[in-house]
């Protein structure tokens, strides 16, 4: 296996890590105004992700950085091509980030409700945009022979990518609700469990439409044949299993299953993409691949050493933080920070 393939896998792993982790805290963000009736309850909801969301977001920063380092042309084409999409994503992430820190600093209900709404809207927008971006990468966008994007912002908003965005949103909602039923107590735990079940129905419908559509309509998937269908099937199976565990009140299992759904969904896109990193709808000759978009062998070697040492260390200390904060969060202002 050459280093280009290894880095394709590593970038995929970083995005899986990001979608898995930020997946539940985007979900939790969207659920703040929906599940929290009183201020204490909303604070409890925010505090379940309080110690973790910042560390989760770094997975995106690192995935972006790794894309830049290993596949500079991919980074250059995607970020300049999807310019306004990424601009909106940045605004969403900016508002979300400061909202967590700012909302509880002032007691006024108007102030807090405003930030709570912003948390929900920005979480929704970020999740939706990420779905749009990745669907377009796989489905193909106009790219010319110089690896330059020739479409507009509205090229990115097509029926498939919009369904992709919505699929990400609903899967994150279920994932977030599962996380909350794992982290909250008493009535709120019940409410989260109920919400997970309700939203699971729409998640199943939208995710099924999305996966069937993308598997059978896009060139990238069709070319892979059966291999391309394995991960989407596993995504569907785990999504169904998550409902079974929700019914059995096995919250940890239900959460793990939606986590696997996310893992398999992201993986299915990368499997279809390989060995390309961006599909050109203008001509297959203009596809960006793991070879024509990559860094030099020397840079890949340096980065491989750093990644092999650091990724396990990061994973280890992030797991440790979940162990430190394994206790459920109570809606009791004495123990809340945000």
């Amino acid at each position: 296996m050459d280093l280009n393939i290894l880095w394709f896998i590593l970038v995929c792993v970083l995005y899986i890590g990001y979608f898995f982790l930020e997946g539940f805290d985007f979900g939790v963000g969207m659920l703040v105004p929906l599940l929290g009736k009183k201020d204490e309850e909303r604070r409890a909801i925010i505090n379940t992700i309080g110690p973790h969301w910042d560390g989760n977001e770094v997975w995106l920063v690192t995935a972006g950085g790794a894309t830049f380092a290993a596949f500079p042309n991919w980074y250059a084409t995607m970020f300049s091509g999807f310019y306004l999409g990424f601009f909106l994503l940045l605004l969403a992430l900016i508002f979300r980030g400061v909202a967590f820190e700012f909302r509880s600093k002032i007691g006024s209900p108007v102030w807090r409700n405003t930030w709570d709404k912003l948390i929900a809207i920005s979480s929704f927008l970020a999740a939706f945009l990420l779905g749009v971006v990745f669907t377009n990468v796989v489905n193909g966008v106009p790219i010319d022979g110089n690896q330059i994007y020739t479409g507009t912002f509205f090229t990115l908003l097509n029926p498939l990518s919009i369904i992709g965005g919505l699929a990400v949103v609903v899967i994150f909602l279920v994932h977030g609700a599962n996380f909350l039923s794992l982290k909250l107590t008493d009535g709120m735990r019940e409410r989260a469990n109920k919400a997970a079940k309700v939203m699971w129905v729409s998640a199943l419908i939208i995710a099924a439409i999305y996966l069937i559509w993308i598997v059978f309509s896009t060139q990238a998937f069709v070319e892979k044949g059966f291999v391309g269908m394995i991960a989407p099937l596993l995504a569907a199976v785990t999504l169904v299993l998550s409902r079974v565990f929700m019914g059995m009140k096995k919250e940890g299992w239900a959460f793990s299953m939606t986590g696997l759904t996310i893992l398999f969904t992201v993986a299915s896109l990368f499997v279809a993409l390989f060995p390309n990193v961006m599909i050109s709808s203008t001509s297959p000759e203009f596809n960006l691949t793991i070879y024509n978009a990559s860094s030099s062998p020397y840079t890949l070697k340096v980065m491989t050493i750093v990644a092999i040492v650091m990724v396990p260390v990061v994973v280890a200390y992030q797991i440790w933080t979940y162990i430190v904060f394994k206790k459920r969060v109570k809606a009791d202002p004495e123990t809340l920070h945000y």
Partner: protein
Amino acid sequence: MDIVLLSRWQFALTTIYHFFFVPLTLGLGIYVAILESMYVKNGNPEYKRLVKFWGKLFLINFAMGVVTGLVMEFQFGMNWSEYSRFVGDIFGAPLAMEGLIAFFLESTFIGVWIFGWERLSKKMHAAMMWLVAIGTNLSAFFILAANGFMQSPVGYVINNGRAEMVDFGAIITNPRALYFFAHTITSGLVTASFFILGFSAYHLLRKKDESAFKISLKLAAVIGFFATVAVIGTGHFQGMELKIAQPMAAAASEAHFETQDPADFSLIAGFTPDGKNVTWNVTIPKALSFLYYFKFEGEVEGINNLQTQYEAKYGPGDYVPLVALTYWTFRIMVALGFLMALITLVIWFYSGKKFPRKGNWLLKILPIAIFFPYLANTAGWILTETARQPWAVTGLILTKDAVSPNLTPTTILISLIGFVLVYGVLMVIDLYLLIKNAKKGLAAGDSTSEPLDVVAVEKTSGGK
């Protein structure tokens, strides 16, 4: 308007804005970690109250630094795709390492620190803040290694029409990167020192929590003095390196037009409206040679001579940066540096037992002095980034060739206006929260078991 100009404005605004928050994060994290370690050692609850007080201000500032930093990482690809293609092989690596080695560290452990007061032992909890402080400063290192390459490229060859890395060691031991790093982290400490001095003085003037704020005032005076001296020292050596690696940038920052030996130092000058030439100039004979060589002789190349050389080497074009801007930002930065060194020295001198009675006038200056490092930091970055122009990477790629070719002026205007509006609103909110919390002073005496006093906020502001 053209896309290069608009992209440059957006990059300048978002970078300057981001760097309002970074230095305080770099320095204040170290202060909070020091104070918490002192608390672990002496068990004095007053120290814990100080940790929580400065820690809360740290967090408000930290959040802004993190979210505005995201913009920086995306922007290279969004607005400068040709730059990203050209140097991605080199430039991407330190950015990815920043994520893996530094940013994960600070962002993960800041969460543990915020929520971990009851879950961790005192020692462990203090260790979390040390990890955050180490992470933020390591972050600065990788970013500055990347920027160092833009100023003074090393460890590369031009291959396949792009710059490719051949020596990673050279890139992270780039003299420019090391000077940058030393200069920036000491600037961070200076920023945090003046922040602490200013707000401590504010409370001492109102005789609030006097014993506690005296502790932080004294600590900041001592560290602040050494840090300011170190900023001046590292700045000087960085300037000497600048003259070797970027003689044009050095000459522009001194408005030094003609090659001279010995060279005169311009004390103050007037500029033509386009900022590219001087109309009058007050100079100290031989002083510029002394600054670079520590003796009153030695040749210093001038702008005109360098322009001729560059035209011969790179073809026709204007290789002179905006001289007036580099000249004045340089002077503002240096003047503030010396002023701050003086302030910390005086306050250290007065900070004995009789303080604040004897140095009361000083206490009144200090809250205003909070702005000095911010002005100096901003001036420093404007100098660094504009003195390099017209290059994006010195000698390798021009800024005008670095822009994303697919963008339209309208697209960039949308994002530029968007950032200005959002950043403007957030600045107002951030300053309001920062000043409000800073003025409120220490939390109630019994706050030792509370996870940061959100409860007190609610009580005082009458909310739920």
